[in-house]
C-alpha cells in the first residue's frame, strides 16, 4: 500500500553552519525500510536537481551501527531493539508527519544534515578497550575454560554495535552505556580481567575528556539501545572503577 508522508528533516551544510528543518513530501510503500523511504526522497530530490539529504547507512541489516537517525525524538525510531535500517514503514500511518534529526549530543558534531561525527567513541576504545595480546602469542583456545553463562553474559555486552544511540538518547549526552559495555565484555572474561583496572580507569578518563555528559541513571540509553544492552553494564563499570581506584596502585 502506498502512503503519503510529510517529512520534517534537519538540514545543515556543515558543522560550521546553522541548521534548520525543512519539509518534504514523499510517497512511500509500507514494505519499504525507513532508509529506502529516504532513498526515494533523495532520488526525487536529485531528479529535481536539488541536494539530497545526507544520512549515513551501510549494512542495512542492523549490525554495522552506521545509521544514526533520530526519528520522532527516538534514536533509531519507535521500535525497541531495532536499528533505523530495520525499521519498516508499515509502523507509520498514512498522512503522518515524521521528524528526522541527527543523533544529538555535544560530543557528536554534525557533519552534514543527518550525519554526525562519532569518532569520540573510537577514542574511548583506543584508551583501553582491548586485551593486550599480539598475534601469535595465544595459547590454545581451550586452555582456560570459561563458564557458559559467563561467556554468554560477556557476549551480551559485546553485542554493542557502537552506533551511539545511547549517547543520543541520553538527555545528558553521556556515553556510559557504550563504555561500560566494553568494560564488562572484556572484564567478564579471564583473558580480559588481567588488565581491567588499567582499562576502566583509562576508558573513563578518555570518556570524560571527550566531553560526554555524566550519567544520572535515567535509563534512556537502555530503552533505546538497538541491541538492548542493559543498565547493569554501567553498574558493573562503576564497581570496576571503584575497585581500581581504591584498591589499585596509585
Amino acid at each position: 500500500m502506498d502512503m503519503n508522508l510529510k517529512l520534517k528533516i534537519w538540514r545543515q551544510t556543515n558543522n560550521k553552519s546553522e541548521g534548520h528543518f525543512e519539509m518534504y513530501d514523499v510517497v512511500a510503500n509500507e514494505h519499504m525500510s525507513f532508509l529506502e523511504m529516504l532513498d526515494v526522497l533523495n532520488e526525487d530530490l536529485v531528479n529535481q536537481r536539488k541536494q539530497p539529504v545526507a544520512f549515513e547507512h551501510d549494512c542495512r541489516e542492523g549490525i554495522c551501527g552506521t545509521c544514526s537517525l533520530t526519528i520522532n525524538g527516538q534514536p533509531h525510531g519507535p521500535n525497541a531493539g531495532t536499528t533505523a535500517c530495520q525499521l519498516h514503514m508499515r509502523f507509520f500511518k498514512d498522512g503522518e508527519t515524521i521528524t528526522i534529526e541527527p543523533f544529538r549530543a555535544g560530543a557528536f558534531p554534525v557533519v552534514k544534515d543527518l550525519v554526525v561525527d562519532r569518532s569520540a567513541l573510537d577514542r574511548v576504545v583506543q584508551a583501553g578497550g582491548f586485551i593486550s595480546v599480539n598475534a601469535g602469542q595465544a595459547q590454545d583456545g581451550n586452555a582456560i575454560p570459561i563458564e557458559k553463562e559467563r561467556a554468554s553474559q560477556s557476549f551480551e555486552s559485546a553485542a554493542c554495535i557502537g552506533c551511539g544511540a545511547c549517547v543520543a538518547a541520553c538527555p545528558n549526552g553521556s556515553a556510559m552505556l557504550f563504555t561500560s559495555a566494553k568494560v564488562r565484555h572484556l572484564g567478564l572474561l579471564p583473558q580480559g580481567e588481567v588488565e581491567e583496572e588499567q582499562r576502566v580507569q583509562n576508558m573513563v578518563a578518555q570518556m570524560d575528556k571527550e566531553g560526554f555528559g555524566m550519567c544520572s541513571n535515567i535509563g534512556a540509553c537502555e530503552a533505546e539501545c538497538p541491541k538492548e544492552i542493559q543498565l547493569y553494564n554501567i553498574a558493573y563499570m562503576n564497581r570496576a572503577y571503584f575497585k581500581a581506584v581504591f584498591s589499585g596502585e596509585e
Partner: protein
Amino acid sequence: MNLDSKIPAGPLAEKWTKYKSTMPIVAPNNKRKLEVIVVGSGLAGASAASSLGELGYAVKCYTFHDSPRRAHSIAAQGGINAAKNYANDGDSIYRLFYDTIKGGDYRSREANVHRLAECSVNIIDQCVAQGVPFAREYGGLLENRSFGGVQVSRTFYARGQTGQQLLIGAYQSLSRQISLGTVTMYNRHEMLDLVIVDGKARGIIVRNLLTGKIERHAAHAVVLATGGYGNVFYLSTNAMMCNATAAWKSVKRGALLANPCFTQIHPTCIPVSGEYQSKLTLMSESLRNDGRVWVPKKKEDAEAIQQGKLKGVDIKEEDRDYYLERRYPAFGNLVPRDVASRAAKVECDKGHGVNPTGLAVFLDFSAAINRYGHMEANKRGNHNPTNEEVIALGEHVVSAKYGNLFEMYEKITGDNPYKHPMKIYPAVHYTMGGLWVDYNLETNVPGLFATGECNFSDHGANRLGASALMQGLADGYFVLPYTIGTFLANDISTPKINPDLPEFLEAEKRVKDNINHLLSVQGEHSVESFHRRLGKIMWNHCGMARNEAGLKEGIEKIRALREEYKKNVFVPGTNDEYNPELEKAIRVADFMELGEVMMLDALNRSESCGGHFREESASPEGEAMRNDAEFTYVAAWNWNEGKPEMFKEPLVFENVELKTRSYK
C-alpha cells in the same frame, strides 16, 4: 605475462612451515623505517594493520567508514571454520584443506588452501585471547556446530553474530596499535588510485570524504583489503558502501583480476519486494538444516499464490514439490549453495514462484515444528498430544534454535514464519574472484598485496560456509605479516617515499580530472538509476545461469550503458564537501568497467564450475559439468585501456584427485 605463483617446493604439509622459517625477514630497527599502507579495516585489513603494527612497521590504515568497526565483515552470521578437532570427529588440517578444495570445485591452489587450513587453528586461539566470546559448552570449552558441504563439526560461532565478534576483536587490536602510535588511522578516506613508482606500488591517492580534499599518501608497500565486488549487481547481501574502486583502480594501473566471473549466489535470502529495494538480506544457511524447500506442483496454484488468492499453507501436501529432496535425495535440502540457488531459479523460471514477482520459493518449517513437537511431548511423558500442543512445543524448539533469524524475517517482511512458510530467493553474496596474488599474497605489481575477499586465492569457484572469516583473519594475522617481508627486505635502505614525486602528482591529477568530469556532465539521470540498470544487466546476463549469446549481449549493453553514463549522469553538489552522491558516482563508474571483465571471463570459461554455471556445459538433467581438460587454470585479466587481456596460471593438483561433485 608469466604468472609465477611462487609456491615453495616440498611436500604439501611442510611447504608453509619451511617457507616461513627460510623467507627473508626485516630486522626490528629497520621495520620502524618502513611504511606500509593498509586499505580497508575489515577482518583482513584490521588484522593485517594491527599485526604489522605489532611487528614494528609504521602503518597507515584507511577506511571510507567513519570508524574501522563498520566494515562489512561485521555482518557475517554463521561462524568460522577451524581444524581443531575439538569434537573428536576425525577432523584434521588435511580434511579442512580437502573439503575447501572440493567445495571450490577444484579451481583453487592446493598450497594456498593447505596454508589456510593450517592457520585456521591459530585463528581460534588468537581470537579467544583477544576476548571474542565464542559459544561454549557447559564444561566451559568451546562449542562447535556443523555447516554445509562438510561432514564434521568444525564451525566456531558467537550466536548469529560471529563476524561482528571477530571484527570487534580485530578492531580492538587495531585500536591498541593506534593508541601505541604504530598505526595511524585515516577514517573517512577513500582510496581512488594506486601510485606506482619505478614499477613498485608506493602509495595511494585518497579523497577525504569530509572535505573532498584529494591527498597523496606514500609508503614502501601497499596492502589492499578492500573486500569483494558483489555490489556490481546492485542488489546483493553486501553493505551499501561495499565497492570495487580500490581494487579496480589497481587493475587499471596494471594489477590482474583473477577469475572475476566466480560469484557466489546464496540460496536463502529474503526476496525482492519492489523496485525501491536497496539491498538484500541473508538468512543464515543453518536454516536449511530444518527447513524444507518447496514450490507448488501445479502452475495454477503458484499463480494463485502470486496473485494473493492462495497462501502457502493452503496447498495440500501432495500438491507440493520438494524439489531439492526430489532431485538430490542424498543431500536433500543441504546441497551446497550454488546447487540450491540454481534449483530455485529453475523452478521460478518454470513459473512456480510464490510471491507477486514470481521470484521466490518456500522454506517451510512446519515439518520440523511437528517433528520437534512430538519429540518434546514424548520427553514430557505426553504420548497423546493434541495438535495444538505439538505445534506449541515444536515452535518453542524451533525458536530456541533460530529465534533471532525468525524475528529478523518478521521485522522485514511482516510475516510470521512460524505460521506461514518463509519466502526466500537466491542473492549475490560473495565474490570468489579478486586480485591475482601469488603465494606471498603479492599481486603482479611488486609491493602491492591483497588480502581477504579482495584477492582470489583460496575459494576456487565456490566458497564453503564459514570460510570467509577464516580466510580474512588467516591472511591478516598469520600470512601477510610474514610474506610482506619478502618484498620489504629488499627495501630496507630505501628512504621514506616522497609523495611529491611526479608519479604521485600525475595520479592525483588523474583523480581530480575524473571527479571534475563526473561533476561537469550534469546529465539527466541519477547515479542510483545507472547502478540499478547495471545491476539488472549483470543479473540477467551474468547471474545464476550464463550462456554465450546472453553474455555477448550483456557486454554490448554494459558498454552502451558506460557511454551513456559518461554523457548523461547527474551528480549534484561539488567536490569540496561531504558528498555521498559523488562517492557513489566514482564507484559506479568502476563497477561498469569491472562488470564487462566479469562477463568476458564468464564468456571465456565455457565450462560450468562452482558458482559459475554455463548452460552450454550441463548434463541432460541440468547438472553442472566441469571441463578439467581445458579449464584447470586461473584466468587473470588486465584492463589494457578497455581491451581486456587474459593470462593463464595453470592449476596443478599433486595431492587431490579431481572428481565430479555429486549430491544425488
